[in-house]
């Protein structure tokens, strides 16, 4: 029984983004790459499932420039994943092509009983790839999942929606689950885990070998720019009462937001 976890490597949340001079993208210099935080929850839940279901095997898969993307796969292996596959692909792939590549490879590896992903990646913030992978594989999905239970036939999850409400959703397996932060506490990799992960052979697949045509690229980005600089803060001085009354008149008369 194969369990796939799709993950992505992204700039660390503390990264200060810089833009390339031609505005074609962000400047990769000095970026610290980490596993997308939501994907850590996906890996954790897959490993927890494996611990409860002997015979389950966890396969971590990613699409990205091989040289750096394998690092997140090593992290997943160190946490407890059994196997890993990297699809060596250009940085600029859109969600559609990425999802197609992931779905193709998962299917050609014999399919999955369950697929776990993060609910979104914190770089492009699209939250598209999980649902697209599910559609390409013709399996049901639930995104933004904070509680997971699975039997042989069904998976039951809680999905977080607006205003703190939750939807309880049942899916027929195989199914795809896109993890939200509340799902679990991702474990730290153990030292033996890290040693084992270092030696593990990661399967490499060239994106160009998957027969995904250029026409599968649907969205392109240009004109990257930083948000406009904010004018300097107006500090309100005096005692608390005076600060408060100044603030209220600023909000009402100057900013006009009340």
């Amino acid at each position, binding site marked *: 029984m194969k369990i796939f976890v799709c993950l992505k490597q992204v700039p660390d*949340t503390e*990264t*200060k*983004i810089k833009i390339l001079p031609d505005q074609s993208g*962000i400047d990769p210099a000095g970026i610290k790459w980490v596993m997308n935080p939501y994907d850590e929850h996906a890996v954790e839940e897959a490993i927890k499932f494996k611990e409860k279901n002997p015979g389950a095997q966890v396969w971590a898969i990613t699409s990205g420039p091989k040289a750096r993307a394998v690092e997140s796969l090593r992290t997943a292996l160190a946490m407890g994943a059994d196997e890993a596959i990297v699809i060596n692909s250009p940085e600029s792939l859109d*969600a*559609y092509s990425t999802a197609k590549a992931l779905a193709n490879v998962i299917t050609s590896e014999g399919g999955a009983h369950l697929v776990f992903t993060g609910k979104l990646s*914190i770089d*492009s*913030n*699209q*939250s*598209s790839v*999980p*649902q*697209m992978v599910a*559609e*390409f594989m013709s399996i*049901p*999905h639930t*995104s*933004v999942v904070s509680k997971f239970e699975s039997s042989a036939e069904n998976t039951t999850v*809680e999905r*977080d929606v*607006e*205003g*703190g*409400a*939750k*939807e*309880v*959703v*049942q*899916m*027929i397996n195989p199914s795809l689950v896109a993890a939200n*932060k509340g799902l679990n506490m991702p474990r730290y990799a153990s030292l033996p885990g890290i040693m084992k992960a270092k030696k593990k052979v990661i399967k490499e697949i060239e994106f160009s070998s998957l027969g995904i045509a250029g026409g599968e*690229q*649907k*969205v*392109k*980005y240009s*004109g*990257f*720019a*930083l*948000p406009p600089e*904010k*004018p300097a*803060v107006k*500090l*309100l001085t005096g005692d*608390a*009462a005076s*600060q*408060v009354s100044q603030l*209220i008149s600023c*909000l009402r008369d100057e*900013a006009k*937001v*009340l």
Partner: protein
Amino acid sequence: MSKILVFAEFQNGNLKRSSQELVQFAAKTGRPVVALALGTQAGSGAAQLGHHGAQEILLCKDAAYDAYNPELFASAVAEAIQNTGATLVLASASSSGKDLFPRVAAKIGAGVVSDGTEITVSGEDVKVKKPLYSGKCFATAQFENTNTKIVLMRANQLPVAPADTSKTATVTEHAFNKPSLKTLVKEIVKGASEKLDLTEANIVVSGGRGLKEAANFKMLNDLASVLGATVGASRAVVDAGWVGHSMQVGQTGKTVAPSLYIAVGISGAIQHLAGMSGSKVIVAINSDANAPIFQKATYGIVGDAFEIVPKLTEEFKKALTH
């Protein structure tokens, strides 16, 4: 010119403001506008789509669409796109919108751009400005190799004029094909808060470590209820378990862009600033004059939150009743 299809969302039988924005925007492009309205709520609210500028309403009052189900909805929307021949689909980047439309896009071989903050439509050409890295930068998205362009816009980004009740739309009732489903929504558990979600709120009051302990969020709740605001939080206090993750603002939480954002006792880690710097006016209240939050703030108060916030609540109460 080809049609624009707007996916309408309703709340308590009324068209949501985010959907009003989209219909009005679509009408202004000069292209024919069809609105898709699903579920029993759509029966009572659909007429409002005409008042906001839709010429045609594709309506299905079937109660099967009262609860969101990805497979069921994806099938209906794909059918609606095919039937109308729409080449541009507009929806809001809500919980269901963000879940649904990537699935639709994969089904029909279309491109989708989520979280748009600006959109330009000139003839068939569509450009969407959207934040990346949760707002640390912006880029312009354009479509290629697709007949259908799907754009999910964030709430509160487009202007809304009052409804014009003299304008009406032609209503076409349609029963969409229903696929056999592998997904069943068993239950919807209501949230503790009936307030607007952080991502839709016009005013947000957020708290951080400076509040010292979970119980002190009460102070923010009081301020928020006077302002009609939604309460948010920094990652530090969510990780500490003071409040739930649904309240987290930042790169690993929610990205918000209200008219007014009040940050109380939040120092302003890069990942928090990324999630809120799109707010129109930012007020920072913090005891540390060197806190990075002041670099993004419009107005700053260096002081003790426990002294400032209750006073602020009192004064707002007075100011807003006058």
